[in-house]
């Protein structure tokens, strides 16, 4: 099994990854009916990254997420029921229906928001990390971003700033091979995103993002270093998204069968299940029970989201400094 993870933690990790998968598969299905408004970017396939990182975090640590944010939210402890209502544009949503899929945030659990602006989270996480440092807490900030975002000026500036100020920040580059329809083979001219880390004077680490244990271990080291005052790390997680850039993307830029092969051979849930049941301490039946509970939770979240009220007209003018 794993030296650092006890049975309880393993079951927790499985539950989180399963919840993300179930949530995303369900949004995918429901989006196809035309009932879910707006742009939706799904995280299915990448669960081991958010989970492997966030398992090390407390509610006082901050994360900044991306447009593909549902997985980060769930892993950081945002309530999936509120998230589903948010995606459906309901008053009961995490952000009262004002933000939607791309802007789910819950600062009470250290989730600084999904983000509609690619690279928007980097500087913000420098700020939460700076605050932690100045206030003398042990808290860290984690910025999740994509291979595409790795080319954004804000991310370069943030990494430099974090290194200059030795901030307790971790930059998690989720390299899923594509930014929209553009391959990272085109947009990232060096072999790995992590190869850029030495130029910023920080460690760069590469992990297999289908392997929860690899992510968990590498993230653990980076986060421990940050908590101990050792400064930032760039962690590149190599993974894949199972669905299109956004729902509705025909994905003709991908190779035929690309995703199917990954689902069958490398899927993070599949690998995780195989590994934790290998010595018989955790059984398939236990995991099946979690699957059923998670399914009930997500089914229920959809039933509630559908039935919940939309925001009231008066809500248009609230939550802003002076409206007219």
């Amino acid at each position, binding site marked *: 099994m794993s030296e650092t993870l006890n049975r309880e933690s393993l079951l927790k990790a499985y539950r989180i990854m399963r919840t993300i998968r179930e949530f995303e598969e369900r949004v995918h299905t429901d989006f196809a009916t035309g009932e879910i*408004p*707006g*742009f939706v970017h799904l995280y299915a396939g990448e669960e081991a990254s958010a989970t492997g990182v966030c398992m090390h975090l407390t509610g006082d640590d901050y994360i900044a997420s991306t447009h593909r944010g549902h997985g980060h939210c769930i892993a950081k402890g945002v309530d999936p029921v509120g998230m589903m209502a948010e995606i459906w*544009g*309901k*008053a009961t949503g995490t*952000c009262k*229906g*004002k*933000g*939607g899929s*791309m*802007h789910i945030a819950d600062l009470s659990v250290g989730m600084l928001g999904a*983000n*509609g*602006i*690619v*690279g928007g989270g980097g500087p913000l996480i420098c700020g939460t990390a700076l605050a932690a440092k100045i206030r003398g807490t042990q808290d860290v900030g984690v910025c999740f971003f994509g291979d*595409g*975002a790795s*080319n*954004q*000026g*804000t991310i370069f500036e943030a990494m430099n700033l974090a290194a200059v100020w030795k901030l307790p920040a971790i930059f998690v580059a989720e390299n899923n091979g*594509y*930014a*929209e*329809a*553009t*391959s*990272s*083979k*085109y*947009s*990232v001219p060096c072999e790995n995103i992590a190869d850029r880390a030495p130029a910023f004077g920080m460690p760069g680490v590469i992990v297999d993002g289908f392997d929860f244990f690899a992510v968990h271990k590498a993230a653990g080291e980076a986060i421990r270093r940050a908590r101990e005052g050792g400064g930032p790390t760039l962690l590149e997680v190599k993974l894949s998204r199972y669905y299109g850039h956004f729902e509705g993307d025909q*994905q*003709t*830029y*991908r*190779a*035929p069968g*690309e995703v199917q092969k990954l689902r069958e051979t490398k899927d993070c849930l599949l690998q995780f299940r195989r590994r934790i049941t290998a010595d018989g301490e955790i059984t398939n039946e236990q995991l099946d029970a979690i699957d059923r509970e998670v399914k009930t939770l997500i089914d229920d979240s959809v039933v509630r989201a559908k039935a919940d009220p*939309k*925001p*009231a*007209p008066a*809500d*248009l*003018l609230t939550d*802003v400094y*002076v*409206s*007219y």
Partner: protein
Amino acid sequence: MARKITYQQAINEALDQEMARDPRVIIMGEDNAGGAGAPGEEDAWGGVLGVTKGLFHKYPGRVLDTPISESGYVGAAVGAACNGLRPVAELMFVDFIGVCFDQIYNQAAKFRYMFGGKAETPVVIRAMYGAGFRAAAQHSQCLYNMFTHIPGLKVVVPSNPYDAKGLLIQSIRDNDPVIFLEHKVLYTMEGEVPEESYAIPFGEANVAREGDDVTIVAFGRMVNQALTAAAALQNQGIHCEVIDPRTTSPLDEDTILESVEKTGRLVIVDESTPRCSMASDIAGIVAQKAFGALKAPIEQVTAPHVPVPFSDALEDLYVPSPARIEAAVTRVKEYR
């Protein structure tokens, strides 16, 4: 009968015809082709909503997909414009201006004046704008007023396919930096568009509907909302003149002032938030230059002063509706 195409096709055709006519024209942006470096189809997207589809293969080497580095490639387009090209850089959503604005407002906009008239910067920045897609606060803004504020920039807001084609051709031929803003809700709008190439000069408003009772000045998508309202008001015996300035900079003040001299009543419809908006700008101009003609207070129909909300229930209230325009027109018409 004239041929009908969509707003989106009209934009594609303008780019196509200018690229065919002038080898200095290049286009660039994220996924303007799509599929770069990927194992599947090339030109897979042709822009996030397919506006530039087909140009990649037709003009080899002149359709550049970019990394997500807006400051980098928008600035590169400006530099290339200083060195003999006529680049059209696409910003996808205008909201992304935040990460590259310096290259536009401190660099491109200022060169000609700041360098004593010795520089020309024939660059076009294309971007889609506007609410209505449930795309929430960071993908729905209406920022033409922000660009209009900057001396040195020209700002174009076509309201229909015919204007989109003619104004984009003019934008590419123009020697100053042009911000060309496409309302995403209009992409599917059909209209009559000549097949041949034509340019619509900047600073010439289109009188989209004639009338003697009330002047409505509207921008972009709001022109169509105003025309819907005007048609309904006609049944109540109120005859509206609907003016579409087509460019916010330069602005055709004369056409607006002449209309107000005739009607004495003005409603301005602007999808952006109200402070420092085109609505407040035009209200100021008319209050100063046509004060004597006014028979009623000027009405401004705008979005509320809040970010664009996600939920359809709120977004539908956010965007100025024909009903709100009708109510404003009725108020100014009845004012004594």
